[in-house]
């Protein structure tokens, strides 16, 4: 797993340099609201009739929430802190669902106080937690579909086996707790949508079996996230990716409504990282460049999310030197990329990381006292391009 590195003309760095100068700060993460809107609209067009609930965890940022709320998105939240952010942005809680399958009593109370009334569960103990709130809350059962091809297999940690669904529904019925639908998450960055399709088909069967049994109908299917981002400077053909999903959804009974929880697809391409060479050293014939951002900061996704971001450096030189791009902390694991062949960089030169919106700022730390990247919002308003 390596990072793709692009060498661009020195002049191309100017717009990033200007943003650093204007903000008086480095490192930066540039949040492009126009790109975020484009991503939302692309996915909405690729999944007509599917309500999109943004997975806040991928990039918990108030400006992101505001833009997506304006676009009509709902929100997938998992904690009380995320509920606080939604309250801040004044999102109607009826457009939210609480998706963490394991909840403390406080999490349930805080979510209900916020006004979120849809919760995800995957086991009998968790169902029983809703006994006191059975008239207020409705549940989705999370079903597990293992996804060996996904980089992040989210069905390993959560979700019940499809075969367990009837027994869990019977348990909820016995307790008088409403289960209104099913959810699944096939994991992220799988190459195609075959896992989505398989999961939808199995859920369709479970939904039909429930109807046949005469039980209260399952009227909502949450197809989770997992819509991919491109980490190779290319574009994802989301319409093609979703075509098999659309076909599978068309087989559902008409009474079933569908929602999805996109995180990465919306946030990843919407943010660009910019950091600066703080110092450099020639060691054993390789140039080590020490940047003010690294794997304890915005590049944390290289550890937690198994993602290597496409990088860009700027130089007009044709000469190439073995190079290592390192983060600022004292820890030797804090290396962004090595075994690279790059033009010589100077102290003060920039490194740009593309597609750095998802699981970057979200998982950054303050380790070693290095401050996190500052998020700078560009194209905040839709008409900015028109009004200048």
């Amino acid at each position: 797993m390596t990072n793709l590195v692009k060498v661009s003309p020195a002049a191309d760095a100017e717009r990033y340099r200007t943003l650093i100068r204007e903000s008086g700060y480095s490192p930066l993460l540039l949040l492009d609201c126009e790109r975020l809107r484009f991503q939302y609209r692309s996915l909405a067009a690729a999944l007509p009739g599917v309500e999109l609930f943004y997975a806040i965890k991928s990039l918990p940022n108030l400006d992101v929430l505001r833009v997506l709320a304006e676009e009509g998105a709902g929100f997938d939240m998992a904690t009380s802190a995320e509920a606080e952010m939604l309250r801040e942005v004044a999102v109607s809680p009826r457009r939210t669902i609480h998706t963490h399958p394991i909840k403390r009593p406080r999490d349930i109370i805080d979510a209900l106080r916020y006004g979120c009334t849809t919760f995800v569960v995957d086991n009998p103990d968790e169902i029983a937690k809703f006994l006191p709130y059975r008239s207020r809350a409705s549940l989705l059962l999370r079903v597990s579909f293992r996804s060996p091809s996904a980089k992040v297999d989210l069905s390993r940690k959560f979700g019940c086996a499809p075969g367990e669904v009837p027994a869990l529904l019977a348990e909820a019925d016995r307790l008088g707790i409403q289960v209104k639908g099913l959810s699944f998450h096939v994991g992220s960055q799988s190459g195609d949508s075959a896992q989505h399709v398989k999961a939808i088909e199995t859920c369709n069967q479970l939904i039909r079996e429930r109807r046949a049994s005469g039980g209260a109908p399952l009227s909502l299917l949450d197809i989770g996230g997992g819509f991919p981002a491109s980490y190779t400077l290319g574009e994802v053909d989301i319409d093609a990716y979703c075509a098999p999903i659309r076909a599978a959804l068309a087989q559902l009974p008409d009474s079933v409504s569908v929602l999805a929880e996109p995180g990465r697809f919306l946030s990843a391409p919407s943010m660009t990282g910019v950091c600066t060479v703080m110092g450099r050293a020639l060691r054993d014939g390789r140039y080590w460049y020490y940047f003010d951002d690294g794997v304890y900061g915005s590049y944390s996704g290289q550890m937690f999310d198994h993602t290597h971001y496409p990088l860009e450096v700027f130089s007009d030189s044709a000469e190439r030197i073995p190079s290592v791009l390192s983060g600022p902390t004292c820890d030797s694991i804090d290396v962004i990329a090595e075994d690279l062949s790059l033009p010589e960089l100077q102290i003060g030169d920039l490194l740009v990381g593309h597609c750095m919106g998802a699981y970057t700022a979200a998982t950054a730390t303050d380790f070693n006292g290095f401050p996190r990247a500052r998020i700078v919002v560009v194209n905040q308003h839709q008409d900015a391009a028109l009004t200048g």
Partner: protein
Amino acid sequence: MTGRKFDETLYDAWCQQFRVDEVLFEVKTGHQQLVIFRNGLFGRVMALDGIIQTTEADEFIYHEMLTHVPLFAHPAPRKVLIVGGGDGGILREVCRHTAVESITMVEIDQAVVEMAKEYFPNHSAGAFDDPRLNLVIDDGAAFVANTAEKFDVIISDSTDPIGPGEALFTKDFYTACHDCLNPGGIMVAQNGVAFMQPDEVSTTAARMAPVFADYHFYQVAVPTYVGGVMTLAWASDDATLRQQAREVIAARYAASGIKTRYYNPGMHVGAFNLPQYILDSLAG
């Protein structure tokens, strides 16, 4: 025609919706979201965290029943404690009892009082200026736990237990209230809509049982507290106080000269009769 709507967020499967004709006030304070708006049918409406708290049009029903039932059941209430009730509605009704000598009201948030005076002036109708009032800004649960004062009637006018009013639904709170009641004293408390929250009846009953010699519930139908009748909790060490003849209540009511719009002696006596599903919850 769409326009702005307010959807109450109490239940996932069902909600009441208000047409919002004008937003008068909207604020996020701490961990709460408060909105006051105007509605064609209910007048000014206040919602906290997506749940209707009070409306101009129907507030009298709740405030009259939570106040006059204990105050006419008690033969001579002189000292009254109100816990919560920052909008002033309970205070207004208590103030109408001229034989009451002192009223202590403990509200956790001064801002609620100020906001209610401005946007719901008819709730308090000047009662905040009553010389008998001692307004204390404090946590109601802490106040009853620490006070050395004794009261004849305690009225707990709180929010829902899933909310800031949580501490006012605990055994500790009921115990502290019991300990600051005079002999023959009565405590009443808002206790939710039983059809929608049957557990609130059984939970409150289980928590009051070890504390008071007698506890029960009485009912009131408030249009905007939707889902069937609301229950109000009743607790005392004297079981006869909720079993008095209508004539006894009627005599006190007549002597008071108080004019009401929902409460009357018949409603008072009848309110203690409960639907079977509530009695079943009460029995556990």
